[in-house]
């Protein structure tokens, strides 16, 4: 593995961590918030719902893995 690849891998692991699905879910929830807010509709409720769902799914995956 080259130094550049090792650096990118370290950045990925630092930012995304061990659960890429949660990171993707956060990005999608923020995008949905921006779309709804951009349409002039109240959008603050999107993130709390996203957090509850993402945390529950992440815990379920971890519990199934036995970690």
């Amino acid at each position, binding site marked *: 593995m080259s130094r550049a690849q090792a650096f990118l891998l370290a950045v990925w692991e630092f*930012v995304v961590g061990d659960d890429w699905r949660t990171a993707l879910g956060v990005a999608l929830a923020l995008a949905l918030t921006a779309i709804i807010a951009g349409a002039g509709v109240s959008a*603050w409720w999107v*993130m709390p719902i996203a957090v509850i769902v993402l945390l529950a799914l992440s815990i379920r995956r971890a519990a199934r893995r036995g970690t």
Partner: protein
Amino acid sequence: MSGTEIGLAVSVFLACAVEAVEALTIVLAVGTTRSWSSAMSGVGAATLALAVIVTALGPALTSLPIDVLRVVVGGLLLIFGLQWLRKAILRGAGLKAKHDELETYQQEAETARAAGARHPGFDGYAFTIAFKGVLLEGLEVAFIVLTFGANQHDVGLAAAAAGLAVLTVVVAGAAARAPLARVPENMMKLAVGVMLSSFGMFWGAEGAGAHWPGGDAALLAVIPSVLLAALATIWTLRRAVMSATSV
């Protein structure tokens, strides 16, 4: 000091204290078994590297437009916070082993003893392990200091809270002359997860264009709600584990 600034200081203090306890264990192990002077040189070099990172990136972050800063920083804080929360919940429910500083210390010390003969004078092994330990544990804290500080335009307050946490842990470690095994690490990690997730959710939504009812005062509802949700999840999982083991 505003409520948000207090939240910033508490979050950074707790996150930094937890990471400092873990770094202290590594430094103690290599310092005791190999060389104190080399281990402390590693600590100094890593601290310098972290200070350079904060000093270099701080002004760059604070120069970003506030909405861009909040959506990026909010998203990253939320990703971090959800990971801290998940691990703390799993540990609280008994589904993941709790972090044991004494065990970590013994493992690190054993590895250090097995790493070969000590070099007279400068010991490269002790330097490298102490440097890596402090740098890796400190990177996440540096990121939290930068993001919280940049968002509130008060990197100085965040850095002061981090410095106070490190000082507290170092003084406690020097007094105990042993790993700080009695620090309630899981509870502190749960608190950090709650704060990172709450601030991340709040800032991320604001950066994306949403307006919270009550503005900044909404945090007074968001933080307790996340905490209650986490505690309820621990309670539910613990009951599920107990009923599964009793069958």
